[in-house]
């Protein structure tokens, strides 16, 4: 009769669990039934018992030196164990404090940036104005201004215009309201004058 190796391996796992006292009652019954019919697994059980018992009795017990044990005990005596649980909460507290510090820094930085911004701001409304000038050969070639509701919007508009300037994205369209005849970027014209397409 052909032997079911996978089943035997499972039964040998149960034998090992039996030795460690972790076998359930149901598995113990199944194992007993299997052992009645399997000489190999019976031999495995007897070998395992022999090897384990010999290792337990023959192998020398390793012990640390007295010096090492004394060093450990010395460390225990010098410590303050009742403080240890508190240390766990210190990490969380430090994390919250760090987060709070970062938030404060961001707040103050933003505040300082608003105060030192070259653009003015409409009093009361909180809207800010940016004036951007394109100079060439010492002369102002183009000038632009935008108003924005927030710092982010202001920066976004400024970036947009800088890109336009760098990419020469200007049209030679004179601002109809500007008597000096300065050239305005298309985007700004569309912003200032709803009749010009963006």
């Amino acid at each position: 009769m052909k032997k079911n190796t996978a089943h035997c391996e499972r039964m040998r796992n149960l034998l090992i669990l039996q030795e460690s006292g972790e076998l359930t009652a149901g598995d113990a019954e199944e194992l007993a039934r299997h052992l009645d019919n399997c000489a190999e697994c019976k031999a495995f059980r007897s070998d395992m018992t022999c090897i384990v018992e010999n290792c337990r009795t023959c192998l020398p017990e390793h012990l640390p030196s007295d010096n090492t044990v004394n060093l450990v005990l010395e460390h225990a005596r010098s410590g303050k164990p009742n403080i240890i649980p508190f240390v766990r909460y210190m990490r969380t507290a430090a994390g919250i404090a760090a987060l709070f510090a970062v938030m404060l820094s961001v707040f103050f930085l933003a505040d300082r940036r608003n105060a030192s911004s070259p653009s003015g701001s409409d009093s009361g409304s909180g809207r800010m104005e940016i004036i951007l000038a394109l100079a060439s050969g010492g002369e102002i070639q183009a000038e632009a201004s935008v108003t924005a509701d927030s710092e982010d919007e202001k920066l976004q508009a400024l970036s947009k215009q800088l890109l336009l300037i760098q990419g020469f994205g200007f049209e030679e369209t004179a601002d109809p309201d500007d008597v000096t005849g300065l050239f305005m970027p298309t985007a700004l014209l569309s912003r200032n004058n709803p009749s010009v397409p963006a």
Partner: protein
Amino acid sequence: MDLKVPAEDMSDAELINLYIGGSIAAMEMLVMRHKASVFGYIMNITGSRQAAEDAFQETWIRAMRKMGSFRDRNFPGWLMRIARNYIIDEARKRKPELSLDCEQDGGLSFKSAIAASGPAPDRSVASKELAGRIAAALDSLPLEQKEVFVLRVQANLPFKDICRIQKTSINTALARMQYALARLRSLLKDEYVQIERTI
């Protein structure tokens, strides 16, 4: 000042609570109670007395530091995990790509890496005693199989703790034990008659 005097019959959990409450004597009792199993495990894994002494000391220092976060039911199992993590950390300091699996990969073995700075292993393979032959056979096992065997047979840990220490499934731990037993059986077959006579 100790609020309550620790007693020999107290459980690990009770001693730990006493230690957290300020009892140094409770920690001393825990050290004395578990020193043999912890050191035996470390010694079998590192193979070097000097490395084992260092690891033993560091394991307890780490355990004392982390005692407040101890939530395990099995204190020795928790100690073995701390010891194992320390041993792996130390081995990786010497050889960053090292893992417990590399012993079979032909490279520098975990054991030789951890013992690199220490004196020669205590165990002599040439020992004529039966214990020496068993120890030599045990030493020849792949480290993960040997670790399972040592944790089960010497440290007397259940498999539910062994698989947590090795960070593996219980089936893998059981398979390693099976391979270890099969290999020991084959290595010790010449001594088998003598072994059988001793039991």
